[in-house]
């Protein structure tokens, strides 16, 4: 079977989507007070760093940035062949913060469930909001994003790939059939 790759978003469309998400986050939270960005490894952490940069350009405030690895919270240990684990790096207390959880692609929602469990083990945030670059549907859990870069209906066997360059800057989103 031939693999077919279609570009969905190019570099500037991704940047525009992230800029819009940054504005929506600021509008919804009325500024940056108590706001923190937490990216899910790997992909979400790079996007969270981009959002931090854009928010700093708009508001002049550097929102605290953390990354979270959800491997320890996954529900499929034993059916996985890859046991590699990344590191969680959150150097600020989460108590009473408004957490913007950032991921690249939202699919079944299981990663987000795991990430929320992981966050709550670290502290008691005031709320958790979800920012996603691409929502591809097929949810298996009652989870919905608050900020969406692009809604993209897909078939289950298709894949969405967010590409990053060496500086971890998103350069495009493709659909792989």
């Amino acid at each position, binding site marked *: 079977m031939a693999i077919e790759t279609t570009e969905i978003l190019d570099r500037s469309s991704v940047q525009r989507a992230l800029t819009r998400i940054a504005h929506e986050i600021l509008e919804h939270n009325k500024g940056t007070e108590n706001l923190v960005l937490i990216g899910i490894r790997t992909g979400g952490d790079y996007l969270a760093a981009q959002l931090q940069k854009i928010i700093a350009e708009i508001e002049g405030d550097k929102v605290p940035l953390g990354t979270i690895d959800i*491997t*320890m*919270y996954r529900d499929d240990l*034993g059916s996985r*062949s*890859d*046991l590699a684990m990344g*590191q969680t*790096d959150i150097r600020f207390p989460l108590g009473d913060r408004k957490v913007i959880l950032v991921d690249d692609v939202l699919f079944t929602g299981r990663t987000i469930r795991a990430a929320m469990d992981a966050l709550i083990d670290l502290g008691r945030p005031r709320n958790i909001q979800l920012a996603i670059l691409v929502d591809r549907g097929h949810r298996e859990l009652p989870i919905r994003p608050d900020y969406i870069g692009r809604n993209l209906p897909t078939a289950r066997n298709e894949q969405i790939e967010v590409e990053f360059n060496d500086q971890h800057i998103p350069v495009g989103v493709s659909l792989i059939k």
Partner: protein
Amino acid sequence: MNFQHRHVLGIKQFNATELNFILDTAESFKEINTRKIKKVPTLRGKTIINLFFEASTRTRTSFEIAGKRLSADTVNISGSSSSVVKGETLEDTARNIEAMHPDIIVMRHGASGAADYLAKRMSCAVVNAGDGTHEHPSQALLDSFTIRQHKGKIAGLKVAIVGDITHSRVVRSNIDCLNKLGADVWLSGPKTMLPPGIERLGCKLAPSLAAAITDADVVMMLRIQRERQGKTLIPSLREYSRYFGLNEFNLKLARPDAIVMHPGPMNRGVEISSAVADGPQNVILDQVENGVAVRMALLYLAAGGENLVED
């Protein structure tokens, strides 16, 4: 990396990439031990049996805490309180335990090769917590983890290991582990405690303690087993201490930034002076702290390998 091991029996079974993978995994778990809520649900619903036929405080506690922080159910069985004292064989004990469907058995046993023996007969994963004078993989891994933490690397470092080499499983696992990770390993000890041919494991024999620790980046002191061989293999503890004890004077031969390690329990004033044991270069309690993270990694990897075929 694809980690393809069902059991953790010894350092021997791993190559350098796999050893680094275990250390990296431990790095991820280390952060949990400093949290307010020290628990993650990774091994929820798994049962781990700590089967200790030999006395151990540090290793058993460390494995038990590691299991509990991963949300596994841990059960401890020690040799003196089990039916072993009533004459049951290892295989029968193991079969009975297996009938209760544990996921992992962590075993310490006085006989070399006991963990391999058990692994061949059990359907659950076996983690070796020390078998006779053979291997003690979790100790070697936590030692390497601690060296990496303080030195940033292992390759190219001079590591001196001093003491009773013959009866130390810690040494065998450490030589293998450090060699694979690229360190330069030197041994020193009384002739009566140096097994012939030990150099074949890939280490160098130093003619004296001074030669071993000169310019060393890491000095690892081993315990003299006073209750056992210590009595017959050396004339006296005072003499041992004089020739093979580490103190603030001979430690000056090592590099100024050298770290001092000891697997515990220490005999203060015998293999290590109190001044060194409590001195600025000691990382002995870091070893204990890191032990929990390393054992969490081993339990996680052993539990994650449940779909693999036997090694």
